């Protein structure tokens, strides 16, 4: 369908006071030859929108350029028929509210923005989604409390589930527990373990297909159309699935690695998992391993391995509660028994403070903060525990029949779980300590593998109540993923985006940059090393587009060519004008809104800069830099999110990749006798809007120092 553009300039909200809007329309009518160009004093009101709608209907306008406020506002006001492409030119926040009114520079800025908007609208298209036949079955791996919960909760919402459990029985660790923590108010009394009820509940759902004694042999394909090979009793069964929940749980830390605690050396030093076994075997009677004697005194050693840089640097979250629980096993077993708990900090957050208080009130439970300085075995196999830094005011020794090490949780991610047939590896990429990577504050379910979500203790150490809530959330995300894929939409963080990367394979040189750099492992390779994209694995960040030296990757509404054309449309004053031109390729999630807020606050900054939003800094293609420099642009800023350990990039590695690429670019620039300082990568948080003038000025000053781009005159 032929494109018919309409350009609409709003003169309200100070825009007309700031720039000559008549002249702006001339950019459309005269320069760009746009047939429909209008000015309205209040474009967002009914009348204004009505005009646009009328043009769409009557004039056949199908690409609308709106020169008004930021696209972050009035989004719904300016949405028309889905077939109409809408481009917003930010004349309010980025021009009128942030620059000196009626100055030549301000006018030039506005005109450039209109030019860029028009050029983009000419080149970009309404995306045509990638829609395949989607299988909405969830694959849940791991049959412990988290996996069972995910399966049941998804089934309750009407989804089919394949549950794969490695061992012959469901239930995981919970099966081994003697009692469980209180699950409901008043959070004081231990409860019987109800995992059997859960399992029988699970079996009531015909939509849940169970594979026990089974492991995932491989998963190939992409979300919505995974081919899953399950190995059961030596046979391989294949299934189709749409999304995956990993709930493979945890393993107790190997306490024998901890020096001085005697685990594996002294028969009566056990860990908290063995303690459960003892309680179950003795039906509540707690007998020590060496001689099966009922214990009269037990020492619990908290943080055995956890919160220790040499072992597990993190806190395992549940051990304080578990030891309080097990202390009450000992006390119920023998009312004269004494239980000592030596902790670093008692961590019983939220309502579990009640549990702490209740268990602590037992006359025979003794608690102190302290550090274990040694454990030795006495002749009768009892143990002497040396404790220093106690609350009692002195170092003490405790003689105990048995010592329980409150060992922590290690995520069960060391073995092969998924066996993904992905070019970037078989398992979920890890963030730290074996926990899957995620943007773990704001979007904790996001992993680096689309439609694969982790739940329960494999994701973070937690007690069963939290695991159940967590597993429910993961199930929702898995359901959501298949629903979004079924309409061709991206999943988080670009849910609703119907565009996807299209590869123009004829020009591909099989350089593998895209397949290597994709943060989500979306692109596989064929035998020759050429990319095999999997749109349903893709998050639409455009990192592949930024990576490709041949510029073969593009989205319907976002491509190397579109941005190049926008850059080229900027009017660069000649050398004699002594006006610098800078472009800022800015992350649309954080940096772009920061400029908006600067505008809202009426913060003035240098008008010689043109902001071009990018999906992610990782999508910036070096060609744009080259195009800009050859066009005579004097400096280029790449403004993205923080990277490193505490990265803020919503696409995990985008801003980091951009930085790396620009490092490489420096050499190229030097070869061209261009100062590498003309290109600068910056990290700007959304809340850094007050730093904008300073950052601009600093960069401008630097570029000024370097002088005009020598390529200007070419």
């Amino acid at each position, binding site marked *: 369908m032929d494109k018919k553009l309409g350009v609409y300039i709003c003169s309200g909200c100070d825009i007309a006071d700031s720039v000559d809007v008549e002249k702006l329309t001339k950019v459309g009518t005269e320069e760009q030859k746009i047939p429909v160009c209008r000015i309205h004093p209040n474009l967002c009101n009914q009348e204004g929108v009505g005009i646009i709608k009328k043009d769409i209907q009557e004039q056949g306008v199908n690409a609308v350029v709106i020169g008004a406020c930021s696209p972050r506002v009035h989004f719904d006001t300016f949405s028309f028929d889905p077939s109409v492409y809408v481009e917003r030119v930010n004349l309010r926040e980025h021009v009128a509210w942030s620059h000196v009114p009626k100055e030549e520079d301000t006018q030039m800025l506005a005109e450039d923005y209109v030019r860029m908007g028009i050029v983009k609208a000419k080149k970009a298209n309404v995306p045509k989604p990638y829609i395949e036949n989607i299988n909405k079955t969830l694959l849940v791996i791991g049959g412990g409390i988290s996996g069972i919960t995910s399966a049941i909760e998804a089934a309750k919402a009407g989804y089919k589930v394949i549950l794969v459990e490695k061992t012959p029985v469901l239930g995981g660790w919970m099966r081994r527990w003697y009692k469980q923590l209180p699950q409901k108010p008043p959070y004081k009394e231990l409860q019987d373990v109800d995992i059997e009820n859960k399992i029988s509940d699970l079996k009531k759902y015909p939509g849940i297909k169970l594979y026990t004694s089974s492991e995932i042999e491989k998963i190939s394909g992409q979300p919505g159309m995974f081919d899953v090979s399950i190995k059961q009793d030596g046979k391989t069964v294949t299934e189709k699935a749409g999304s995956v929940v990993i709930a493979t749980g945890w393993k107790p830390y190997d306490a024998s690695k901890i020096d001085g605690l005697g685990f594996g050396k002294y028969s009566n030093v056990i860990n908290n998992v063995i303690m459960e076994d003892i309680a179950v075997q003795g039906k509540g009677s707690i007998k020590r391993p060496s001689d099966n004697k009922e214990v009269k005194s037990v020492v619990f050693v908290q943080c055995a391995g956890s919160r220790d840089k040499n072992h597990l640097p993190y806190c395992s979250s549940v051990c304080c509660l578990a030891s309080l629980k097990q202390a009450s096993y000992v006390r119920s077993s023998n009312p004269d028994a004494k239980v000592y708990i030596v902790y670093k900090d008692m961590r019983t957050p939220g309502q579990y403070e009640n549990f702490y208080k209740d268990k602590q009130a037992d006359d025979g439970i003794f608690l102190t903060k302290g550090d274990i300085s040694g454990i030795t075995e006495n002749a009768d196999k009892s143990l002497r525990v040396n404790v220093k830094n106690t609350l*009692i005011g002195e170092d003490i020794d405790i003689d105990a029949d048995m010592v329980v090490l409150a060992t922590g949780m290690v995520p069960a991610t060391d073995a092969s779980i998924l066996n993904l047939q992905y070019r970037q590896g078989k398992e979920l990429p890890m963030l730290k300590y074996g926990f899957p990577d995620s943007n773990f504050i704001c979007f904790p379910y996001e992993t680096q593998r689309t439609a694969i979500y982790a739940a329960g203790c494999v994701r973070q150490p937690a007690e069963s109540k939290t695991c159940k809530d967590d597993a429910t959330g993961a199930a929702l995300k898995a359901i959501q993923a298949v629903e979004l894929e079924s309409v061709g939409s991206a999943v988080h963080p670009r849910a609703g985006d119907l565009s996807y990367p299209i590869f123009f394979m004829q020009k591909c040189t099989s350089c593998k940059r895209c397949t290597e750099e994709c943060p989500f492992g979306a692109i596989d390779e064929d035998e020759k090393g050429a990319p095999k994209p999997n749109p349903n694995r893709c998050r639409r960040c455009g990192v592949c587009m930024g990576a490709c030296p041949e510029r073969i990757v593009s989205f319907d509404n976002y491509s190397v060519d579109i941005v190049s054309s926008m850059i080229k449309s900027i009017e660069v004053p000649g050398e004699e004008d002594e006006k610098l031109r800078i472009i800022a390729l800015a992350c649309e999630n954080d940096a772009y809104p920061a400029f908006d807020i600067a505008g809202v606050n009426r913060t003035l900054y240098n008008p010689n800069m043109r902001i071009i939003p990018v999906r992610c800094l990782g999508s910036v293609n070096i060609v744009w830099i080259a195009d800009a420099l050859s066009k005579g642009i004097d400096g280029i800023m790449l403004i993205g999110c923080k990277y490193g350990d505490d990265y803020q990039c919503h696409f995990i590695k985008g801003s980091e990749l951009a930085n790396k690429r620009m490092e490489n670019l420096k050499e190229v620039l030097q070869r061209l006798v261009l100062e590498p300082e003309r290109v600068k990568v910056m990290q700007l948080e959304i809340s850094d809007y007050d730093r904008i003038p300073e950052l601009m000025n600093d960069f401008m000053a630097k570029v000024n120092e370097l002088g005009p781009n020598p390529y200007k005159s070419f």
Partner: protein
Amino acid sequence: MANNIIETDIDFIKDIKKLGGSSLKNCFQCATCSVVCSLSSDDKPFPRKEMIWAQWGLKDKLLSDPDVWRCYQCGDCTVYCPRGAKPGEVMGAVRNYSFMHYAVPGFMGKALGSAKYLPLLLAVPVILFLVVLQLMGALSAVPAGPIAFTRFDNYVDAIFIIVSVLVIIAIATGISRFWKNMDKNNPHNGNYGRAGIVNSIIAAASEVLTHRNFKKCDANNMRYTGHLAIFYGFIALFIVTAIVFIGDRVFQMELPMSQMNPVKILGNLGAVALILGCAIAVYNRVSRKKQSGESYYYDWLFLGILSLIGVTGLLSELIRLSGNAPAAYWTYFIHLTFVFFLIGYFPYSKFAHLIYRFVAIVYARYAGLSEPAEEAVSGNIETKSIA
């Protein structure tokens, strides 16, 4: 170096719970108590450490801890305790336990600690008095002439003298054990003995007489008022009794004294102060539970006996003045029964706190353990009553 092998004592915990420290296990060691306490020192604050000792049943530590006796149970810590552990009450319970623990003979401590022995304990003086009166032939007839309790006293003096000697022996033994225990379990530092025993006693006496530290208590100053009244009422009565005894026996003073006699006035004032003080104390315990904490048998027994001594004493006097001789003498009989209870059971009842506290303060001074917080520190703390 081998550390102290910890000996936790669940029975001790149970005893402390029964004696007024029922909430002791609630403590989670935040030390709010040590901070809000106006008497707690900087170097060796209490009662946080006492709380964990109590939770662990570390009996030896608590029974030899002079800080337990620095506490006047004002209730500040109890009011601010975030866990409802009521440290003030736990400290009181430890003191109660101490009376029994250091009591000689030990069974007397137990007898005073339980209501079921109360009839027996009351029966002892009653029977003793009745036996003596019977032997003296005084039971059959009311003495003729003006009513003078000194006549009655003549019959029972011997009992009181014998009992007093026994009590003094018991107290001396108790104090000696207490002192030795404190000396054994508290580290001797460079200041040990530097203050000298005489100076330490003087300083302690001054503290007790002025109620200086008691007054610092914030949350429960009503308790301070009551205690002060009882304390000085009791001292006044004690002085009067001593004067009367000596006056009667040595100087053949004419008794009863005129109501205008300064000694008599002092006695009457003392009686009123005692009764008022007891009334305040009872009111405080009944209606201001949050500040004063739970009251137990041990508390009520002592307060009850004190009140009854005051009331029966005053009543005896009034009836004497009314001229009803039999009623006056029988009332006086009852009065003396309670006096016997107080004096005879002194080392085993809560009354013994007077002496243990005094000894603990002397020891703390003598051993050079830290002083109570100085005025400079606690004086400028804005205090606020908890309404």
